């Protein structure tokens, strides 16, 4: 604030000086110049009268000559004074206005406003460094989920962009270089409310600097998901290793993430679908929403909705894959595909820089001749992974055209052969094979989000958008930290397991993306469950019953139970070595008879209605009692007293039933 006042004062110093000097001279002139009163005597204006006259002379000329009519000498001085004071007034007002319009002044004004906003923040927030495609998507999603974020970007234009993109949410934004620690500090890094720093700039070394600054500026805090989360985007493995070396909680390499997903989809399409369902961003364009409203009744159109989520699992073929571009993306894809046993062939424009494996083809991939050299007709899939969107599209289109051309010549050949009865059986089979292969699996890398529409039109099987990949990953980390754990466990499961999960989820998810949420069995989060846990064991099934009709169950499944294993028996040992590490046990897709313990963390997946109902049941003792026993608990003290006997009997019955049930099972 002080900066602002001082800058302003400094700027208006000269105009003020000029104003005072001119007034001084003019007033002095009026006092010294002799005038005449109505009797014709020589009369000198007093300072009071002179100041009065000069004051209105500058602004509203025309009050007249007071208190007595002026002499010619006075009039001459008035003419001079008018021009002097009016000019200086105009200059002063202009100077003040231009100071207010000054970019530096505006910048300071904005920074002050930003600082005030940061100071007023009373809720947890995330610091997003870099408002590019990814930052934009992430900030939007966080705002949709009612999570506050603070944005820093080096480009002031992008900060202006934020105001246009998010008109309904007040996201504090600062134009500044995030690699300077003071900028990070200004943005509230050191505030205890800052829950995480997300470095999304497109330069690895800037992200690295942010990570280092975050680590050093908040020494008292633990770099961990529960305290201060540190998420970095990294594009090279060097930077990744460097970031990991000082405790960055999550490092997201978009190419690695995508390549891993692609490999997963090749190995197990169902597992990939689960992955996509759970991490997808609920991002819908406004145009698409309008479409949905106008064509809402048409079911056919509903399935065409441009969700980032597919209804059907995609099935990438196994065979030869052609990869165009062997940069960071191409390398990651090739490595992960080779890992799951897919043969790859690389086309690279600058082999001397990227060192592709032997047998690679030198060329851009945008010309038919290079593709022919790579035997595109034999390949089952093509990956366009250069850093140029136009080239990527061109590669895909050229490859498709090439296949079409080959297929057409073969058709002609066959027609020719059949006409002259030259057909051999072997050849026929081969040609039919070629006909089937006509469908080429296409994967393209989309570098810029503004090319979205073109890529959508290109009918690609798989589009790699770094922005939505990174945003999706980070969002799932922020919203449901357990999801990350679940997915890493799920990746190791077999296809059959994923199919089972899909059939369970898709039984109640119709068109929407499934919601995932997390509950911890504790007094704070689930008071009702904690209350009944003191009285006896609780099965997982019980929690999943519908609160309006306990015979039905909610539309959700439990994906994961995460349990802390306390090491109570050897307490001495624990005291002597107070290591912070606790032992965990994870139960993947637990069955209905799973016994819940206090402190368990549960990850659910289901529709949004179930999510709300579940929040109700686990916190309301009366509702939960209904789920447990089928009876409703009276609310007030009087009714509780009246029903006490009934309740006691009811509990007895329940315990008897349970004990008989366990006896039966023992037998």
């Amino acid at each position, binding site marked *: 604030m002080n900066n602002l006042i*001082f*800058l302003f004062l400094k700027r208006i*110093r000269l105009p003020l*000086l000029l104003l005072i000097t001119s007034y001084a001279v003019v007033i*002095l002139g009026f006092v010294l110049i002799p005038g005449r009163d109505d009797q014709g005597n020589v009369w000198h204006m*007093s*300072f*009071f009268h002179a100041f009065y006259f000069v004051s209105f002379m500058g602004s509203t000329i025309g009050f007249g000559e007071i208190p007595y009519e002026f002499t010619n000498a006075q009039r001459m001085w008035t003419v001079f004074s008018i021009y002097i004071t009016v000019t200086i007034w105009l200059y002063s007002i202009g100077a003040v206005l231009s100071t207010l319009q000054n970019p530096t002044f505006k910048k300071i004004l904005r920074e002050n406003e930003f600082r005030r906003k940061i100071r007023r923040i009373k809720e947890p927030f995330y610091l997003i460094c870099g408002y590019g495609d990814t930052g934009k998507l992430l900030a939007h999603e966080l705002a949709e989920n009612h999570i506050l974020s603070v944005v820093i970007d080096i480009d002031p234009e992008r900060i202006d962009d934020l105001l246009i993109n998010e008109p309904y949410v007040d996201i504090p934004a600062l134009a500044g270089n995030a690699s300077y620690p003071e900028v990070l500090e200004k943005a509230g890094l050191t505030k205890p409310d800052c829950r995480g720093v997300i470095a999304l700039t497109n330069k690895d070394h800037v992200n690295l600097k942010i990570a280092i600054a975050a680590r050093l500026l908040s020494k008292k805090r633990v770099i961990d998901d529960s305290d201060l989360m540190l998420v970095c985007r990294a594009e090279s493995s060097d930077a990744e290793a460097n970031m990991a070396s000082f405790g960055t909680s999550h490092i997201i390499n978009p190419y690695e993430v995508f390549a891993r997903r692609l490999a997963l989809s090749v190995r197990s399409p169902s597992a990939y679908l689960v992955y996509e369902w759970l991490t997808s961003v609920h991002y819908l364009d406004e145009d698409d929403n309008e479409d949905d409203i106008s064509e809402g009744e048409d079911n056919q159109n509903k399935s065409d909705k441009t969700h980032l989520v597919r209804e059907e699992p995609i099935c990438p073929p196994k065979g030869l894959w052609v990869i165009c571009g062997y940069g960071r993306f191409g390398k990651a894809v090739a490595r992960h595909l080779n890992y799951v046993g897919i043969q790859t062939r690389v086309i690279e424009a600058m082999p001397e820089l990227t060192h592709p494996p032997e047998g690679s083809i030198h060329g851009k991939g945008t010309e038919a001749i290079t593709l022919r050299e790579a035997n595109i007709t034999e390949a089952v899939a093509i990956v366009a992974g250069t850093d140029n969107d136009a080239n990527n599209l061109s590669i895909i289109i050229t490859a498709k055209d090439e296949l079409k051309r080959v297929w057409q010549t073969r058709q002609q050949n066959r027609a020719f052969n059949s006409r002259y009865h030259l057909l051999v059986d072997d050849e026929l089979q081969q040609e039919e094979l070629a006909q089937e292969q006509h469908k080429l699996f296409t994967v393209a890398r989309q570098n810029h989000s503004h090319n979205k529409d073109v890529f959508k039109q290109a009918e690609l099987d798989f589009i790699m958008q770094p922005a939505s990949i990174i945003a999706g990953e980070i969002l799932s980390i922020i919203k449901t930290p357990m999801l990350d754990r679940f997915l890493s466990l799920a990746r190791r499961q077999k296809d059959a397991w994923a199919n089972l999960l899909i059939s369970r989820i898709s039984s109640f998810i119709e068109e929407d993306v499934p919601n995932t949420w997390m509950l911890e069995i504790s007094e704070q989060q689930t008071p009702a469950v904690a209350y009944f846990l003191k009285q006896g064991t609780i099965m997982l099934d019980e929690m999943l019953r519908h609160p309006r009709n306990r015979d039905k169950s909610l539309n959700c499944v439990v994906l994961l139970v995460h349990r802390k294993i306390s090491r109570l028996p050897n307490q001495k040992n624990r005291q002597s070595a107070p290591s912070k590490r606790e032992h965990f046990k994870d139960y993947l897709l637990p069955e209905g008879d799973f016994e819940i313990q206090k402190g368990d963390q549960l990850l659910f997946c289901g529709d949004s209605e179930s999510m709300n109902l579940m929040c109700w049941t686990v916190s309301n003792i009366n509702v939960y009692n209904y789920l447990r026993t089928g009876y409703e608990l009276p609310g007030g003290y009087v009714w509780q007293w009246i029903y006490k006997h009934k309740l006691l009997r009811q509990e007895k019955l329940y315990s008897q039933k349970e004990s008989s049930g366990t006896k039966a099972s023992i037998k």
Partner: protein
Amino acid sequence: MDFERVSFAFFIVFALTINFGFFAGDIDNPAHHHVMELYAAIIISLIATIIKLGDRTHIGSVLLATSLVADLHLLAAAFIWGYFQHVSDTGVTPDVMATIVSVSGGALIANITSVVLLVIETVVVRR
């Protein structure tokens, strides 16, 4: 030699001297206190205030404060003079003149503080 330093010191010292010129003399004798002197004191004091604006140092802000105090005193004195001369029927009697001069005495103290601070700053900087 820096023109800014020269003008800075000039106006601060000038404000004091001219203020003293008005103050000096019998306190209730209108003949000893000329209206022109008060006018000059006000103008110089205002200019000194403007010159002090925008200095971010600690001593700079104290200097600005003393100057503002001097301005207030001198303007008050001018207002009293103008009121009794033109609005009230009494005119400028020795009583009124005593009031005006004593008020301007307050400004004199403020201006002395200003000059003392200036001298201290100069001694400390030693350049």
